[in-house]
């Protein structure tokens, strides 16, 4: 088994998973790439303006990242209000630390890592128990397979319809609820990877977990949400 409480262990590690692999060429490539985020803002430009004390740069960063930060923080703390506090504290840490930002990760990854570390330590402070995946978790209920492992109850065909059904009805709200019920590690990985669109490497970086654990948590989280969709789509 993998994934035993590694998120929690990760919290104590100040280095990043894969840190030594972050070579200078990779960092340079990232900067040249100038991958635009939602607002079409390049990191270099935004970082320079933040360092210069440009308030409009801070406002842009808040517009781009704050809502996602609160969403991620909610994975680790018990209430929306505490999540907002953690996000606010993170902004102060970002302002204090921006001169030391080295551009080895994207600005977004750097901010999210500060946030995740703070949210986790706040969660500990609140004495909130962290659900840790210890048990093996079947991707699909084993009763749906026969003795040799072939489908006895194969999936109904709904993959083509699901996107059409997103715009109407409560499906997105149900998926949101399903995400909030995922165990902490799965929720954090699914949120960062599939909702915020981070790469697997960046997810490992933010959460301080290995690639292997990232994949296990992603697999389990996605499998649970797929099962939820299957139930909802079978209700017609």
């Amino acid at each position, binding site marked *: 088994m993998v994934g035993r409480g590694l998120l929690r262990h990760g919290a104590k590690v100040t280095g990043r998973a894969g840190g030594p692999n972050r070579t200078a060429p990779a960092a340079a490539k990232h900067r040249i790439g100038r991958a635009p985020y939602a607002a079409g803002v390049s990191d270099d430009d935004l970082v320079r303006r933040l360092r210069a004390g440009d308030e409009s740069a801070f406002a842009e960063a808040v517009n781009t990242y704050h*809502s996602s930060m609160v969403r991620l923080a909610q994975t680790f703390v018990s209430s929306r209000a505490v999540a907002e506090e953690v996000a606010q504290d993170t902004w102060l840490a970002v302002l204090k630390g921006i001169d030391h930002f080295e551009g080895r990760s994207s600005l977004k990854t750097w901010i999210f890592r500060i946030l995740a570390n703070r949210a986790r330590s706040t969660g500990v402070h609140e004495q909130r128990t962290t659900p840790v995946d210890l048990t093996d978790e079947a991707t699909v209920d084993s009763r749906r397979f026969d003795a040799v492992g072939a489908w006895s109850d194969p999936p109904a065909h709904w*993959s083509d319809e699901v996107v059409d059904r997103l715009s109407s009805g409560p499906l997105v709200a149900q998926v949101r609820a399903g995400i909030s019920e995922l165990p902490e590690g799965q929720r954090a990985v699914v949120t960062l990877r599939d909702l915020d669109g981070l790469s697997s490497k960046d997810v490992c970086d933010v959460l301080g977990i290995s690639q292997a654990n990232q994949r296990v948590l992603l697999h389990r989280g996605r499998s649970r949400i797929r099962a939820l969709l299957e139930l909802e789509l079978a209700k017609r």
Partner: protein
Amino acid sequence: MRLPTLRRDVVCQQAVELVTDYLEGRLSRRDARQFEAHLRACDGCEEYLRQVKATITVLGSVQPDDLAPETRQGLLELYRQFRGE
């Protein structure tokens, strides 16, 4: 990391466990070929993979809550305090 060794004929119960490793490009070329061969022959697993991809699309459509104007204003005030204005 447990990466099941694929039998020559991968069965459905194994195939569903491999979906994420497949999508993440973590299967060996040989295992990926066997996985794909199974999907070509198995309607249930082909649909299963489509469902996981559809799930990823659905997850990608889940937006965070809008930034409340008062939250934004509060953060800008925090910024001005920080800058000592």
